């Protein structure tokens, strides 16, 4: 009866002298590993979003949280007139990144997505454009 208790305490006491595994968030910041799938960003090249509104990411998205509407610019090229992700539904699977034929979308290390209202979870194109 007493032996298991002592064994348990031994483990507890041994941990008191080890380095803690918990992080003192938010004062301490985690070291985000490569390949982490956080908030999306739309890549920019030549001052324009690379996205050509091919509709592949909304097609592949299992949570159906991406809305794309294509438009035609002055040069008759296709661009995303609307690009929106409903972050409340996103499951961070990264399929959109994989599907994109033009490397227009990636997932950043940004994981702090808490917010106050539902509307704040709708990430419009402006919010998603990568900040340089």
């Amino acid at each position: 009866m007493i032996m298991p208790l002592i064994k348990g305490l031994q483990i507890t006491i041994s941990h008191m002298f080890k380095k803690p595994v918990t992080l003192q968030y938010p004062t301490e910041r985690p070291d985000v590993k490569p390949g982490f799938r956080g908030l999306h960003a739309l890549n920019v090249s030549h001052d324009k979003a690379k996205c050509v509104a091919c509709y592949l990411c909304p097609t592949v998205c299992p949570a159906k949280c991406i809305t794309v509407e294509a438009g035609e610019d002055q040069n008759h090229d296709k661009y995303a007139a609307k690009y929106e992700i409903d972050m409340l539904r996103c499951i961070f699977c990264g399929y959109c990144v994989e599907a994109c034929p033009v490397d227009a979308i990636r997932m950043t290390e940004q994981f702090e997505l808490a917010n106050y209202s539902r509307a704040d979870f709708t990430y419009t194109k402006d919010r998603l454009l990568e900040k340089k």
Partner: protein
Amino acid sequence: MVNLTIDGKQVAVEKDATIYDAAKACGIKIPILCHDKKLHPFGGCRMCLVEVEQMKGRLIPACTTPVTEGMIVQTTTDEIVKARKLVLELLLLKHPIDCPVCDAAGDCDLQNLTYEYKVNMNRFVDEKFNHEIDYENPLIERDMNRCIHCGKCARICDEIVSYGAYTFINRGIEAKMGTEFDGPLNCEFCGSCVSVCPVGALNSRPFKFKARWWALQKTKSVCSYCGTGCQLTLGSKDGKVLTTIYDENQGFHNGQLCTRGRFGYQFVNSEKRLTAPLVRKNGKLQEATWEEALAEVTSRLSAGKSDPASVAALATARLTNEELFLFEKLFRGTVGTDNIDHSAGYAHEALTKGALASFGVAASPAEIADIQKSSQLLVVKSDAYETHPVIGFEINLGVKRKGVALRIVSDKKGKLTRLPGAKTTVHAPGSEVALFNALCKSVIDQGLAAEGVAGLDALKAAVADASAEKAGVTAEEIAAIAKEFASAEKGLIILPIGLGYPGHNAALANAAANLAILTGQVGKEGAGLLIMGEKNNSQGAVDMGIYPKATGLNAQGIIDGCTSGNIKTLFVAGENPVVSYPNRKKVEKALENVEFMVVSDLFLTETAALADVVLPACSFAEKSGTFTSLGRRVQNVRKAIPAIGLAKSDFEILNALSQSLGGARYNNQGEVFTEIAATVPAYKGLTQAGLKDEGAVYPVAVAAKLVPAAAKSAAPAAGKLALVTGSALYHCGTMSRFGEGPMYVCPDAYAELNVADAAALKIVEGDQVTVTSGTGAVLVAAKVGKRVPQGVVFSPYHFGEGSVNTITDGSEVTYVTVAKK
């Protein structure tokens, strides 16, 4: 039958089949790029290569090689796959491969085959094409960089559409699919080329970038413009109809559509759609609730029940059979009035009076399939192409593929008159009945009348004074037409009818029927008379009895009744009499005068603007039901999107009114069809489910009878031009004005003049001209050409601005003066 073996499977096919057809018949898919079942074999792409035991040593194209007895065919060997991969590599060599921004992606034969054959890399390198892309055209975008030179666009435009807009230009690697002088495309805009293009070289501009093919919800339905009844597939997403999708297996026309069907769907989601009921308060139409609007209508109609003769109802032939049946039941039954009509009265008289008298049924004895089976076509007016373009394609095919002889009797020339071997007789405007009477007389005089035709003597007496001069044609020509039609093995008369053609009335139907009966052409396959109703459900409206049957007033009588005050309550379901009926001023006055008018429509039309209550109705894309096309084919219309705003279908509106007026109430439109099948004899035994995708042609028992038709003598007025109205190719009725497609290519009213008349009046193309008749004057743009003969002016009736009905009075021809503004 020829027997052969394909991939070890035994198959027997017709002797004119190709290896490709034989493989298809036994369920083996051979990849194709340039082949199309509607077109002549081409053999340009070499994607369909197969191996034939008897022709070892080389690979054989399956799409052009006819089958022979005992052939042993392999469709997939390593060698074949290698060859097909090579074909794809070569095609991709100069191809831009911009699938992410190409609207064809997902529905692209090149993309699909590249994926299927795993062509991941290319052994060759070359520069890409750098052709200029045609962005200017509002309907068809041409990106020749993506073209794979399959030639399908040029072939369909030539073989079926008979327009011939494209041809290959330049040679070798420079070769490109080009237009006349490599200029902008200026054609009929039927979109046939866009629909057959296997890649994204030809795209529908109104649909550009709107959605991916796979994301569209596809609903098989029927075109809601003309009476041809083409089947189409609506592509919709998020409650919006975004495009029409081509399906080569749909309908008699194999998915072909005209410009209205292909590009005119935008009226469904137009910004201008009515989304809430309107009720007139203090002289102004104001938004109201359905309860309020319907209560007002109900109280007026129930008051009208005590004096049914003061109530009248007009319906458009665009409603479904179910709605029209309910309409008839509500007004003729519950309310008790016989003042029911559609389309100005005269526009369907050819069926309700003409065909009924001549054949004993208010329908044509012939059907659409008879066109290609015929040996001699006699088309009344070259306008048959403009009114029913896809019937025009059938005529083209009959003439070019089946060797059908074509004769056109018309007051102007047109596309049909340019077909190979087409013989055209241009007669004096308004003399159609006189012409047919002269033909009948000539048949009798030449001793060509079929034996034992009853009533021959009466007809003989009636046409005794008919003569070629009365129709403005030479006697020799009349004799020749009479002879060619009478001696034809299978002679078919094609007669379009509609609001623009007041002369195509009961008398003309009788006169044309007389010729068919007299020459023994009725009751045979490929022969007889085909009367082509203008609207998608013109035949259905006749079948459902939307015309006065006893002592009731017809549409013209109703308008007069409104003016005189005898009609106090008028219900208008979808009609737009102000624009489409003759004598606009008179109609406007009548409708302003009537005590109470209800209009249910998609838009606040010129007519709805005068109403006391306007009910927002649903378009064909928002409801289910059936339409009956001109060949008596009953077809299923299916709901593709939810109702726009608060709009209700006419079925819902009429059902609600019927219930509150103490009439029948139905749970859904399907119940109405069951009742139609039980009460309308022609529809006996039909069920909506049984109609399936292809629909059903209901049979008619024809009791042919000669009915003398009196020709009115139109006295030409000296110094005046003869104005004839009609349909423009891009429009149908007044609804196509709300479709962007038709409005891009034909936005405004015009008057078409002969070059000689124009020169005499110093008018050039595009001038604004005032056309004045005894009824009024209208300002339109002039179009100058050689299509209309000297002394004749043609003007389409669809438009609200420059509406030609301002100056017409319902007679066959209106005599006018034309002057430059």
